[in-house]
């Protein structure tokens, strides 16, 4: 909580601001031309602004502009680049719609999209135009659009109240609030009416009608006020955002978030809208929750859908929503409010319908439970009761799909109830002479209780039949419905009451049992798929298991679409192991769902006309594919619990796919490790087997030379020759083995930060023998930074280069080894003043088995430079050969410098 002493801006707020700015940097900017009604000149203003931008050199594309036959607007379109509309067949008519894909392909800097609240023809990708715009913005395209105040969702009912014209094309307020700029286009009501009369708004014959209904001066003034207020709210929001930006403290607001509850009450929609407006005015975040009690779960499907629709509305109005399953409404609401730190509760006022004096309204209950939370009651509309009576109260259990079979079973239950009553009556008649009538009553009550197991209807039937039979057969006068003693009326009443209430009770229990069994079924199917998937080790198994599970649980056909290496989805159903009755998968839609990570198709906001639902399989690291589901009973997928279950399935499948993926990765790594181990041991064995005889050769030749008494000079020379050749052979073997190792990728660089000087010293020491006839000059600056390299390999490079010098330059030549730091590279060169390289072969010398001259007497097979290149390239460096200015050759290699670690002084 911010205290008055807290002068600093909240870091979280600033961070949110930065994140928002980053996100916006990638997104296009949305500017909305906002007006109170048609005809104020929004489109005109938009076009004027766009023309100005185009004249400044911006790439402007006209996506959709409705001129409504207004000449002065049409003129402005001249010379602008207009996107051809897409022709869509709808109920036999060709309609022109905005071509989203073409616009995305063209990718202009700015696109003009008129009438943001427009609803697309079914069959387009999105049902609403603002969703098209959202996608354009996401692609980084700036959008100019227009909007009238009556199209704002939260003001929709208010405007409807003012004008008596309810518009159905609305946009969520969050779209308006998220717009980067809002430009209010405003003219006074009189002027608008004058324009209307002049035919500038609608063409003549429309104008008359419009003026009567909508364009009344009172309406226009009220709408204008609404538009101005709404814009003012937004500007205020901007000002606050600016203040947070600029660290102007004074207006820090404490968290005053709102919570509203959505229930079956028809006034709920009103409450939601009111809460949204209130939250907007308070500039606070708000939550909407629905507490589902067992009795609410029993509601008719239509009612439940209405509740969920209200919750959806809340979401589009910017609320955070949640569904909570709990028997105690008030307690769970308070618990939610406390958990989320919500200090204000918005509820609808209860209808005044108090049966008992101790009954309290929900407001009073909430107030008693949480005296510290502000309670705001929203009044009821006067005509609400009429609306509520229209609602169907027909009882349709959620999961019951009425089939003729089921109806027959129901009928049969009534027959059973009647038969039980008849049987019991026949059984009781002989007993009547022996037992008291009160005992007979007990037998009938027993019958009713037993029959109650069949349900509420049969129980009621049994109660009525029992009363009749008892009256007819046992109450004097017998065999007549007449009753002589009044006290039997009480007996009848008790029998009827017992029958009805027991029936009611059993039905309730049966319902609860069914709900519980459905829950169990869901849990069971989840458990099953989780268990099966956990055993899967191959993608094919995952596909098979998910297919079978979804088939079993949802009575739906499913397909898994998995991405190939380039992220394009491939339908696994084309694999031979799948059934033939594959569903009509639209790869394009699936790809959309995969790329966005949002569900698409049936029952979603994107291409809802499709038969198939596409759910992206989101795993912890990335999306793993798309699950396509087509339910045979479509309604089943609309039930929230079922959708949740399906989403859970999707999550499980995604995790299984990810696990399988990593199993594959691990196996590959293991295989690679194994082959590397094999290669290394092979090379080591080879190296050992080749070197051992060479060691023996060298050693024996040398010991031969040392034999006492001394050998003759010819013998000595032979021994020396054997030794030299063996050593050369050894170098050759080393080169070959190193080349094999480097080429097979089997070298792990032992990178260390070290001075170059040291490795140069070691290389010169190794090459000392070869370069005895040469003059060696070393030029290394003392202040060279440390470089990260593998000392053995770089020494190898230097030795090879020096060895080359010894071979290809005449004795007495000067070999210069120099180094310098150039930019972020260390440049090392070995040069000489010898005959230079064969012209045009500067690059070829680095090829394997290439030598300076063909068939020369100089020993070697030409691997040295090839190894140098391989080593330097594995260090991310470059090695080149060139003619030295002034004669001779120069070999240069580079190593990246990087950032050496600091050395503590000592």
């Amino acid at each position, binding site marked *: 909580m911010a205290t008055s002493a807290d002068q600093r801006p909240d870091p979280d707020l600033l961070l949110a601001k930065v994140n928002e700015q980053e996100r916006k940097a990638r997104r296009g900017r949305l500017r909305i031309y906002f007006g109170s009604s048609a005809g104020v000149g929004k489109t005109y203003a938009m076009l004027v602004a766009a023309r100005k931008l185009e004249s400044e050199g911006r790439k402007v594309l006209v996506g959709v502009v409705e001129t409504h036959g207004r000449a002065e607007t049409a003129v402005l379109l001249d010379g602008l680049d207009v996107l051809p509309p897409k022709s869509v067949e709808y109920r036999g008519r060709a309609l022109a719609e905005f071509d989203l894909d073409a616009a995305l392909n063209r990718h202009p800097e700015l696109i003009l999209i008129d009438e943001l609240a427009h609803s697309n023809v079914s069959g387009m990708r999105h049902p609403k135009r603002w969703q098209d715009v959202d996608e354009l913005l996401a692609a980084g395209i700036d959008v100019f659009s227009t909007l009238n105040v009556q199209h704002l969702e939260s003001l929709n009912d208010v405007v409807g109240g003012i004008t008596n014209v309810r518009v159905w094309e609305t946009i969520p307020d969050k779209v308006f609030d998220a717009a980067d700029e809002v430009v209010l286009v405003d003219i006074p009501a009189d002027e608008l009416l004058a324009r209307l009369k002049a035919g500038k708004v609608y063409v003549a014959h429309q104008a008359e009608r419009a003026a009567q209904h909508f364009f009344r001066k009172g309406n226009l003034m009220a709408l204008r006020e609404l538009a101005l207020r709404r814009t003012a709210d937004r500007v205020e929001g901007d000002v606050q955002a600016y203040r947070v930006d600029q660290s102007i403290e004074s207006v820090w607001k404490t968290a005053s978030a709102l919570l509203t509850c959505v229930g079956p009450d028809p006034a709920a929609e009103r409450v939601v809208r009111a809460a949204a407006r209130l939250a907007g005015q308070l500039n606070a975040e708000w939550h909407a929750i629905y507490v589902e009690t067992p009795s609410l779960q029993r509601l008719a499907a239509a009612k439940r859908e209405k509740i969920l629709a209200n919750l959806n509305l809340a979401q589009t109005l910017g609320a955070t929503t949640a569904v909570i399953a709990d028997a105690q409404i008030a307690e769970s609401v308070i618990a939610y409010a406390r958990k989320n730190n919500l200090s204000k509760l918005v509820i609808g006022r209860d209808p005044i319908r108090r049966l008992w004096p101790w009954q309290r309204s929900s407001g009073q209950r909430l107030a008693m439970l949480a005296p510290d939370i502000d309670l705001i009651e929203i009044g009821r509309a006067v005509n609400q009761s009429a609306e509520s009576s229209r609602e169907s109260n027909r009882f349709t259990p959620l999961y019951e799909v009425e089939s003729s079979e089921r109806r027959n079973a129901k009928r049969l239950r009534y027959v059973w109830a009647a038969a039980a009553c008849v049987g019991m009556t026949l059984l009781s008649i002989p007993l009547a002479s022996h037992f008291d009538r009160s005992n007979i009553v007990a037998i009938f009550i027993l019958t009713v209780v037993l029959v109650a197991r069949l349900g509420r209807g049969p129980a009621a039937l049994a109660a009525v039949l029992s009363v009749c039979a008892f009256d007819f057969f046992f109450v004097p006068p017998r065999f007549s419905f007449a009753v002589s003693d009044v006290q039997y009326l009480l007996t009848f009443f008790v029998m009827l009451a017992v029958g009805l209430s027991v029936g009611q009770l059993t039905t309730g229990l049966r319902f609860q049992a069914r709900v519980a069994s459905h829950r169990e079924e869901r849990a069971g199917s989840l458990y099953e798929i989780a268990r099966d998937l956990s055993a899967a080790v191959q993608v094919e198994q995952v596909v098979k298991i998910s297919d079978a599970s979804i088939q079993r649980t949802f009575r739906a056909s499913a397909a898994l679409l998995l991405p190939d290496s380039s992220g394009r989805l491939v339908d696994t159903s084309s694999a031979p192991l799948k059934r033939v009755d594959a569903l009509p998968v639209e790869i394009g839609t699936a790809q959309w769902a995969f790329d966005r990570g949002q569900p698409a198709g049936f029952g979603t906001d994107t291409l809802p006309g499709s038969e198939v639902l596409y759910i992206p399989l989101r795993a912890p690291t990335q999306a793993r594919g798309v699950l396509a589901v087509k339910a045979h009973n479509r309604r089943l997928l609309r039930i929230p619990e079922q959708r949740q279950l399906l989403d859970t399935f999707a999550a499980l499948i995604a995790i299984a796919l990810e696990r399988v993926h990593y199993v594959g990765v691990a196996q590959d790594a293991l295989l690679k490790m194994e082959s590397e181990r094999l290669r290394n041991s092979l090379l080591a064995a080879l190296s050992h087997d080749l070197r051992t005889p060479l*060691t023996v050769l060298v050693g024996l030749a*040398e010991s031969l030379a040392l034999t006492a008494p001394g050998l003759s000079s010819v013998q000595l020379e032979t021994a020396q020759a054997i030794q030299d050749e063996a050593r050369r052979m*050894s170098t050759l073997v080393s080169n070959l083995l190193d080349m094999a190792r480097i080429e097979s990728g089997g070298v792990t660089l032992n990178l260390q930060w070290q*001075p170059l000087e040291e490795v140069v010293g070691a290389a010169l020491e190794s090459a000392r023998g070869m370069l005895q006839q040469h003059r060696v000059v*070393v030029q290394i600056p003392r202040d060279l930074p440390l470089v990260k390299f593998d000392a053995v390999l770089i020494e190898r490079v230097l030795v090879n280069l020096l060895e080359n010098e010894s071979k290809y330059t005449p004795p007495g030549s000067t070999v210069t080894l120099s180094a310098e730091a150039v930019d972020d590279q260390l440049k090392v060169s070995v040069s000489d003043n010898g005959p230079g390289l064969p012209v045009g072969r500067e690059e070829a010398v680095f090829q394997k088995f290439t030598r300076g001259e063909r068939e020369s007497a100089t020993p070697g097979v030409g691997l040295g430079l090839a190894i140098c290149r391989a080593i330097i390239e594995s260090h991310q460096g470059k090695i080149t050969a060139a003619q030295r200015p002034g004669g001779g050759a120069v070999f240069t290699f580079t190593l990246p410098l990087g950032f050496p*670690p600091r050395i*503590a002084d000592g």
Partner: protein
Amino acid sequence: MAEPLPVAILIEDERQIRRFVRTALEAEGWSIHEAATMRDGLNDAGTRRPDLIILDLGLPDGDGVQFLRDLRGWSKVPVIVLSARVSEQDKIEALDAGADDYLTKPFGVGELLARVRATARRRLDGAVDPNAAFTFGDVKIDLSQRTVYKGGAAIHLTPIEFRLLGLLIANSGKVLTHRQILREVWGPAHAEDGHYVRVYMGHLRQKLEDDPAQPRHILTETAVGYRLVQNAR
């Protein structure tokens, strides 16, 4: 009767290598015991009271590093290991496990004898007298006075440089791995900071070598460590 000959044990599985090494060492006046396996070698080392062990790291029946660890548990006899060029890591491990020197195959008799002589001399001389003066090239160091002269001119060394030089002198002729130097000079906490050694070794060379790029005394054993050579070749 003359003084008994010094005893060397040669553990090497290749008969021909054993043959020329034996020839060379016997000519130098050593008594040689050959062993073809690790197990025999360990037995000989325990029973023959050797003055030197020459150990091939690539034996068929075991790991030379393990041999060294076993041996160092009860003996300080100098060990020279023989190893192929490719496996710097093996050499480092062997040196860290207590080997005194190494030879890379293929090696010549001359190199072998030079190493054997240096190792044997170190053993006979015992530890360097901490109070005695030590010289290499034209550099003269008085360890007790903590003074260093090069060609008569006093050289200033930082405390770490001096500790480093002291360590090299105490192990003159012997290869010290980076890890050993780090542990002795900087302490165990710096065991991974190999670049420290390289940088300070560079400083020492700048101050004490005639041509730091072509050192004559403070030699680099590439990727393994350093060796101080008193008498330049």
